[in-house]
């Protein structure tokens, strides 16, 4: 994880680096909460069929808008489906569209941002042009257009949201790389005759990445909300399927009569975002050499 891997580094050294990484990461107790929270939602998403015994899309006998009971833990929704099952299965969709699309966007954005910064000139101009084009069109309108062009569904949603997220990451990475590239150690590498590719991944990338980590955790929340917005407009994921966003928008009319209906997916969403934020902070600290190896 940390930089400065040489091809001759022995296994022992690497083990120590890994251990130091985790020690620094968890040196603030709260990071453990973030880690546990994130892992919890990941596990729920992975093992959804084992956790929820009922079919999230099947109507139940209990009737609609019931509050929690032994049979239906979170009660039932507005047409009488089991809410617990819907929230558990919804975790999958939200994590996939939110986390996966942001991770993809971050990956591509970081790569392109670094290219823009390092090569400059025409590459830089083209990539910035792409960013500016995207930023000048309202996000939701662009999403609607893309969804109606390529159709809805989870995979398309994730790809479109990823596409929407790239410009932000690209700009952030470009700016942070540019400041790193002005430092003397990059000049020193160039003067040693180090290859461009190696300078990029070995020296610029690890030093410029920390704002991206923080940004990613914040983008996940925004993306989940974007997805729910699209689902609300009926162009997101296809209908019977559940996502946190779609549950929230379905529950909206019953906010006053049945508050737990809307609260439950909201709390899940909030917990996931908080956990991710804290985890992101922890990872950033562990990557920062100024904080590493204090103990």
């Amino acid at each position: 994880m940390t930089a400065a891997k040489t091809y001759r580094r022995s296994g022992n050294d690497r083990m120590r680096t890994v251990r130091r990484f985790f020690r620094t990461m968890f040196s603030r107790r709260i990071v453990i909460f973030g880690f546990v929270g994130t892992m919890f939602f990941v596990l729920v998403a992975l093992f959804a069929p084992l956790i929820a015994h009922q079919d999230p899309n099947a109507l139940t006998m209990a009737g609609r808008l019931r509050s929690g009971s032994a049979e239906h833990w979170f009660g039932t929704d507005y047409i009488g489906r089991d809410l617990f099952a819907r929230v558990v299965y919804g975790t999958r969709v939200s994590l996939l569209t939110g986390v996966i699309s942001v991770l993809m966007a971050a990956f591509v954005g970081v790569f392109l941002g670094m290219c823009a910064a390092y090569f400059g000139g025409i590459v830089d101009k083209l990539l910035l042009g792409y960013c500016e084009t995207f930023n000048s069109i309202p996000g939701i309108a662009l999403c609607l257009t893309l969804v109606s062009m390529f159709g809805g569904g989870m995979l398309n949603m994730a790809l479109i949201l990823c596409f929407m997220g790239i410009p932000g990451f690209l700009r952030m990475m470009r700016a942070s790389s540019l400041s790193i590239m002005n430092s003397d150690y990059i000049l020193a590498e160039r003067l040693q005759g180090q290859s461009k590719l190696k300078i990029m991944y070995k020296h610029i990338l690890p030093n410029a990445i920390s704002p991206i980590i923080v940004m990613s955790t914040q983008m996940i929340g925004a993306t989940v909300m974007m997805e729910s917005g699209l689902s609300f407009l009926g162009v997101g994921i296809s209908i019977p399927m559940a996502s946190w966003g779609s549950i929230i928008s379905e529950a909206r009319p019953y906010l006053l009569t049945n508050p737990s209906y809307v609260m439950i997916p909201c709390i899940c969403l909030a917990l996931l975002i908080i956990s991710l934020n804290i985890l992101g902070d922890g990872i950033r600290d562990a990557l920062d050499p100024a904080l590493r190896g204090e103990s």
Partner: protein
Amino acid sequence: MTMKANDLVQAVDIRTSFPFDKNRRVQAVDGVSLELKRGEIVGLVGESGSGKSVTSMSILQLILPPGKVEGEVYVDGMQGNMLTYGPQSEEARSVRGGKIGMIFQEPMTSLNPIHKVGFQIQENILTHQKVSEEEAKNLAIDMMRKVGIANPEMRYNQYPAEFSGGMRQRIMIAMVLAAKPDVLIADEATTALDVTTQAQILELIQNLSKTENVSVIIVTHNLGLVARYADRIYVMYGGNIVESGDKYTMFASPQHPYTKGLLAAVPRLDDRKDRRLVPIEGLPPVAINLPPYCKFYERCKYREDRCKEGMCPLSDRGNQHFVRCVLSAEEVAAKEKSMADDAGSVPEKHIGEEPILKVENLKMYFPIYRGVMKRKVGEVHAVEDVSFVVHPGETLGVVGESGCGKSTLAKCIMRAITPVDGHIYFKGQDIARMKERELKPLRSKITMIFQDPFSSLNPRQTAESIVGEPLQINHLTSSRAEYDARINELFELVGLDPSFRTRVPREFSGGQRQRIGIARALACNPDVMICDEPVSALDVSIQAQIINLLEDLQSSLNLAYVFIAHDLSVVKHISDRILVMYLGRVVETAPAERLYDHPLHPYTKALLSAVPITDPKADENRERIKLSGEIPSVLNRPSGCPFSTRCPYATDRCRKEVPKLQDYGNGQQAACFLCEKER
């Protein structure tokens, strides 16, 4: 406690501390007492971490909680101990800026960029004097004239961005003096400026202190400056005053081991050629783990067990000379004698005949683009027609003030940029326009040491991989064992413990980082090393260690150095020959000794006289050439001789023609029409 008759400010036993962690506090200033008489200039000298800035801030009550100041501060005209009033009190605010004004180091950030400079001066007058706005404006313009700003009526309405660094510092002085203070504190006020500008500003402060009857506290790390401009000196170390006294007595017979050490560690312009600097062992003090006894104990050459018995008081050695040392002057002198003079002289050099690096008519221009269409409107002539040779084992010093093109020159030789015209021969091969691929094998033979030991090392790499990287790039080692051995060898060569290999740069001190930088540059057995201000970011005691290391490496590895610096005394100390640059041109080149004894070009003379010697007596006897004005911007260079706008002897011919370098014998060349006439 009452103040002495003619004291302006008296600080008694100031202790300033900051919280470090839950239970401990850092004692940044540990019992400092000082006094300032009317019309006096006092120097407060010390390395980083000595507490000199915190002391001056404590007197002004600029320390914010959780920092805590204890002690007593008496100011003439104010009732009682100032510290009892609290930092935000009416009394404290009338002292700050009113009675005592302060100038800070960074002229670029200490003025508010969105207000006109005149307004900022006027505002300060209105806060501290009861005058109308119109009067305040007139006073402000008067003040600007006093600090040497030409055409103050016009410049009154300009913004800080339209002023150069030196000019802004003048504005700061005007602003502070406009409130008619009794005391002026200059906290490293000239450190960020060029030497000739620095001399101008300090001379201005010195004159103003006489004409306006203002006392001055100069806070600085530069011993030479206080030797020239101060009357009385306080030397600080680890939050204590270790020695104080009149400058003549103190520089004539320094008594505290630290003061002695500092003076031996600093290169002087009038040094003999082979003098070796004596660095102070160890590292500058870290405030958190200072001992309760003498702070200098760990690094002291003369330490004894009785030093650890407790903090010793400042003892009067006669003539108002106070020293905080258990040992008497005789004891120190006896010990000094018994310890053989281990400094010796610099190791012998073997300068080769055949030049290893030859630069011919090098030119580097940068285009300037303006307007919507980004049309090229002109060129910055950063390096103009520079030629020189460097022999193996020789050090060529390059000096000049900011904007003279010395760093651009280094980048051209390193081929970080491609020069516009000219040739750079390395071992006979012209590398000036070589392609990156052809250049790669040569890259390891010309290496570079950078100025900033903090930004020149990747913070995420271990020391081992920083030093080993050139070996890997050039595939110089074939096995792990060989690689390890070479890294250990390099670490030992630069005086680092090989067991520090796996540490990251943050875990090293500034001097150690610079050693890592040197080890990296040495990794591939280079022939030429370009040192771009390698010691200017370091403390003086550490500076000496690095300079000695560079000298040792040169003699054992037969390296050629191109040593770039703005500090003339350092350059003169280490170099065999010196190249003086001004606005991209070489104005004079000569062997180091010759340049000091017999400078030809007026700029060289001015540069030499702007650098003070750490001996006030010797310094006063030197010929002084004062320059007016500042270095013109490279964008509008004078049409004739680049120096003609500031030269006191400039003639019409100088303003029209560019003088060429002429040989004057003894390896000395100068580009000046005046010297031609004298011949």
